[in-house]
């Protein structure tokens, strides 16, 4: 983790599960920092997912599910697991500054 990442993350408020408390305080720099903290270097493909998640959240007030991401973007399930290892919907949502995707009931 770089010093810059540390400095940025210190200014951001996270909940107990590591999700940003205020999605409106999110910036692309914060996304880079959260990703860096998880050992992920963001590429254009990551940004396809992140931008989609942000857009969905603005429209529906909810982060998208995995199936929604893979159906509405050109990123397929296999790729999204490689982009965001260990729970892609959750990790993408975290990097996009959104809450935990509502676990289905």
């Amino acid at each position: 983790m770089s010093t810059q990442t540390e400095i940025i993350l210190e200014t951001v408020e996270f909940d107990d599960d590591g999700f940003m408390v205020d999605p409106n305080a999110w910036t692309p720099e914060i996304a880079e920092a959260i990703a860096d903290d998880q050992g992920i270097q963001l590429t254009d493909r990551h940004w396809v997912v992140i931008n989609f998640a942000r857009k969905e959240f603005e429209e529906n007030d909810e982060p998208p599910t995995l199936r929604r991401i893979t159906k509405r973007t050109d990123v397929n399930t296999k790729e999204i697991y490689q982009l965001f290892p260990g729970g892609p919907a959750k990790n993408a949502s975290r990097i996009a500054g959104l809450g935990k995707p509502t676990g289905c009931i």
Partner: protein
Amino acid sequence: MKTLLILGAGTGGTMVATKMAHLLDLQEWRIIIVDRDESHYYQPGFLFIPFGIYSPSDVVKPKRNFLPPQVEVFFSDIEIIEPDQNRVQLRYEKKVINYDYLVIATGSHIHPEETPGLMDGAWRKNIFDFYTVEGAIALSRFLKFWKGGRMVLNITEMPIKCPVAPLEFIFLADWFFHERSMRDDVEIVFTTPLAGAFTKPRASGILGNLLEEKGILLESDFNIMEVDTTNQAIRSYDEREIDYDLLVTIPTNMGAEVIDRSDMGDELNFIPTDKHTLQSPKWENVWIIGDAGNTPTSKAGSVAHFMLDVLVDNMLRHMEGLEPLPKFDGHANCFIVSGFEKGILIDFNYDVEPLPGKYPLPGFGPFSLLKESAVNHWGKMMFRWIYWNMMLKGEDMPFESQMSMAGKWA
């Protein structure tokens, strides 16, 4: 003459038809219900068929028996719903029905073809579902002669109808193998895309402990990518591999195909629904009951029952030019059979997760919440009678639509 059209004559649609037949002036209204299937299935009973506890005749009855004579019935597939034109076209003779009000109760169904390999040759040979009556019967035949090995139960993806059913299946299987003195010859593995045994944290903890007590292995955060029927293994997207001798699958659940054809649903064909009023946010004369909608609560008959009064009141209010009231709170309750003639009851809504206590009478019960008891088991077994004889017929039941905190320990 005005028309109330109901699509789907399962639990939700049948209850709406029965209730509206009493409440609407039938000089002024015609009520039409459409379903493609002439049989009504008691779906909670499918769970018991693989273990020989229920037979198919316990869970299937003619739909006609439960629909009031004042209601016109069409048995047909639905070609398309055109909510902008207030009309629906049936497959049967391409009949067009114009409606004033539409209730959609088309439910959800399994789609095993969504998972690569699942239907490649081993389907219903050593891979089974129990969400269809055919699957449950095929599995009962298999289990009768099975010598043991590793049984894997996999939930493909959420949401699924009756999210406790997979757990109940496992508990019943554990009991079944014990009774046949072959539990030591069977390894039971539960693989789920969820982080734990259930969707709600507190219940997940208690149910997770039960799994452990019963020696059932839990593989969580497991998102299945494919089934390899040659090597008898399932693989996840994060490259975990689990071998099986018997695979019991809960395939992807989706809303009806007609919802997709009509471009009314989300990516799983579930219809966007106002979660408190049960009205469509897009078409004000369209209402959704049960698991056809995307309300974030359990896709289960108990929920459809709790939705009923809210939906009917709101539709009647709308007919009088009044605003619908946001009264549905996501109330669900489920009897969970846990094996050895015991059961657990959980009661929850959008905001309150399952809590311990007594139900439905505070302090008295007779049912215990979030705790194993024999009474809970018999509650579940009695429920089949209540379903056929009271719930579908619209008789009063001793449960409130809205969840109550009385008798619960927060």
